[in-house]
């Protein structure tokens, strides 16, 4: 969380936190994990009323933000959700919204996503593939006025509850994105390490879509996909930052409460030094998330670089910190009953998704090397 939030942003954070605390406690998260759905649509619609879907949408399209820096406001929500391992399709819906708003058109879809009536998701992974959102195997073939889409997307977040899929495909003219409705595809649920975030594989078996399904310009989706990666990357990193923050908070409290040999764990230098490292890394996580967030918000030249740095650092350090917090809890830390694993699950999923730390490092090297060559 930034230290220089405006009073409006602080109020927004408080409202979000109160709502989440009363609506989705960690007990509720555990209940959802065995229920039929990972989130309730009526609940999501109430989140939409609080602004969770409005922040990246301009005012003349019915959106609006607290601070005129919608992405930064959205990071506040992501962080609060991370603190409580909340359910809900915050990332996929907002990534798709940002794509639709940038591309123009699709007003009805924007409207229903904004209201929380519809849920959309981002279909960018493919079976057997690594993180290469701009090199899809799914093909788009022209067919009269429309298109035929063929192939499979997997690791699609909230696929089970999505009404709309933003599908990246290879058209003869180049990279193209389509907004595909639920009834055109087949969804097969896949396993998820996270208790409430669900994923699925999406089959596109020669699906016919009209020309109006195209998002943006045919063959020209490269830049928008890059932008979507940035929005997704920074939202995910902010969510992880919230999770780490909360875990470190309760682990520090534990270190003061738990005694061994007649003194609190917090008095042992061997442990104090690890807490000092974890505190430093946690502040560094917040620092890089907010630098990356500002760059994405301002569409700065170094946005991709800072998002990759956030992906590399936050992914690696978050899981290291939370695993170390498990260690510092001792035996209780590896039980199902303790909340630690809920956070560890979320952070582990986030570390692996939309680019691993290694993927982000290679992307950074590409940037550094091409800059030096220039």
């Amino acid at each position, binding site marked *: 969380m930034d*230290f220089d939030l405006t009073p409006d942003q602080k109020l927004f954070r408080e409202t979000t936190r109160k709502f989440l605390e009363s609506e989705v406690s960690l007990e509720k998260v555990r209940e959802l994990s065995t229920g039929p759905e990972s989130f309730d649509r009526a609940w999501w619609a109430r989140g939409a009323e609080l602004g969770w879907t409005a922040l990246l949408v301009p005012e003349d399209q019915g959106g609006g933000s607290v601070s005129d820096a919608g992405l930064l406001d959205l990071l506040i929500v992501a962080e609060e959700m991370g603190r409580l391992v909340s359910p809900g399709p915050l990332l996929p819906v907002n990534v798709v919204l940002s794509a639709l708003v940038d591309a123009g058109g699709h007003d009805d879809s924007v409207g229903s996503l904004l209201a929380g009536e519809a849920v959309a998701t981002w279909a960018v992974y493919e079976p057997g593939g690594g993180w290469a959102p701009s090199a899809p195997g799914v093909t788009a073939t022209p067919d009269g006025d429309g298109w035929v889409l063929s192939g499979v997307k997997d690791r699609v977040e909230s696929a089970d509850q999505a009404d709309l899929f933003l599908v990246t495909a290879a058209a003869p003219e180049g990279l193209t994105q389509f907004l595909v409705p639920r009834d055109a595809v087949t969804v097969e649920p896949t396993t998820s390490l996270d208790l409430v975030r669900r994923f699925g594989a999406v089959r596109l078996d020669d699906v016919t879509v009209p020309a109006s399904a195209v998002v943006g310009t045919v063959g020209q989706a490269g830049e928008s996909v890059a932008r979507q990666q940035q929005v997704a990357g920074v939202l995910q990193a902010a969510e992880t930052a919230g999770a780490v923050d909360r875990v470190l908070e309760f682990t520090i409290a534990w270190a*003061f409460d738990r005694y061994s040999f007649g003194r609190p764990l917090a008095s042992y230098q061997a442990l104090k030094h690890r807490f000092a490292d974890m505190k*430093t890394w946690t*502040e560094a996580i917040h*620092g890089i998330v907010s630098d990356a967030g500002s760059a994405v918000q301002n569409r700065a030249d170094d946005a991709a670089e*800072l998002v990759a740095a956030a992906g*590399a650092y936050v992914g690696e350090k978050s899981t290291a910190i939370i695993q170390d917090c498990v260690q510092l809890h001792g035996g209780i830390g590896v039980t199902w009953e303790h909340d630690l694993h809920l956070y560890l699950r979320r952070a582990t999923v986030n570390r692996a998704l939309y680019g691993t730390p290694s993927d982000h490092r290679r992307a950074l090297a590409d940037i550094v090397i091409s800059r030096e060559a220039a």
Partner: protein
Amino acid sequence: MPRLEDRDPSLDDPENDVASWSRTKELQKILWNGGFAGIAFPSAYGGLGLTPEHQHAFNRESQGYEMPLRINVPTLAICAATVLDMGSEQQKRDRIGGALRGDELMVQFLSEPRGGSDLAGVTTRAERDGDVWILNGAKIWSSGAYAADYGLCLVRTDWSVPKHAGLTMFLVPVHTPGITIRRIRQVNGSTEFCEEFFDDVMLPADSVVGEVNGGWAVASRQLYWERTSMGGGSPYVSGWGRGIPAAAARSLAGLARSVGRLDDVAVRELIGESRANHLVQSALVRRVTIGLTTGALPGPSASMTRLMHAETDWRDSDIRVDIAGSAAVTGATGEVGELSLNRQAGSLGGGSTEMARNVISERVLGMPREFAADRDVPFKDVKQGRA
């Protein structure tokens, strides 16, 4: 300023310390004459009285030019900053002005042969004799003392009180009768480190900085500035980089290319990791700076940037060695290996990372302080060694 590409590379040779320091003074004089010295120092003491943002803008523009980087730490960012906060009017005018004009360099006389981490445990002493103070004892690990003009020297002036209460800070002219300087050779060949012996050195009363027996307050301020500059958050640093050896400043991509490994995926991941670490380090500096100015973080939080700086530094050292491989120990990139031998310097200089971790856990997180056998004990009764 002269262009960076015209810089004399022999100045990077650790054996060439003296020439490197006099070049630093020359460059500082050019800055001064051009009206760009001490941008964030008050104009009353020779600075320009502008903001840290002005200094930052200047630093950005100064990339590509040869800058007097070695005057930044400790002279400007630690010593002059401390004098500005704690010194007398005369000291501020003389010492800050002298440094900004490129006439003088300052060093830190803090560490002693008996221990550096336990800084308040110094045993170098000064006794009052009429109008003057008589200084006796020894200091060690003072970087660049042979080339310097003044040292901020922490000494004991009262042995009958607990350790923090009996200290006084002096501004000591380095080249004065009674001071012997001996150079110490470091593993990388540099003879930068010095050891000083003080034998009945006479210091006038006006060389006290702050109050007599109030030296801990001055030292604390000095340590604050040291942490701030070690972490990369000082408003008084002019120019970017630290005037570090060429091997450390060299780009990792360039190194990879020179050993034919630029296309190796593992090497590219290391290059990316280093870039991420540096971006994270500056993000942390920015965050801590805002946290300190808004009061969201307690003062000792600068220790986090100090810790991160050391971590980034030693990870870079390891990454360089990994990329260079065997060429780091026998071959064209041998300086990479040499440099790695001095890997821990950044985790010790400016206070060790262990002490930084103590500060973070105790004064940022509020965890119980370490047991101190010398707490509330008159210093003369404190055990000074195993015997």
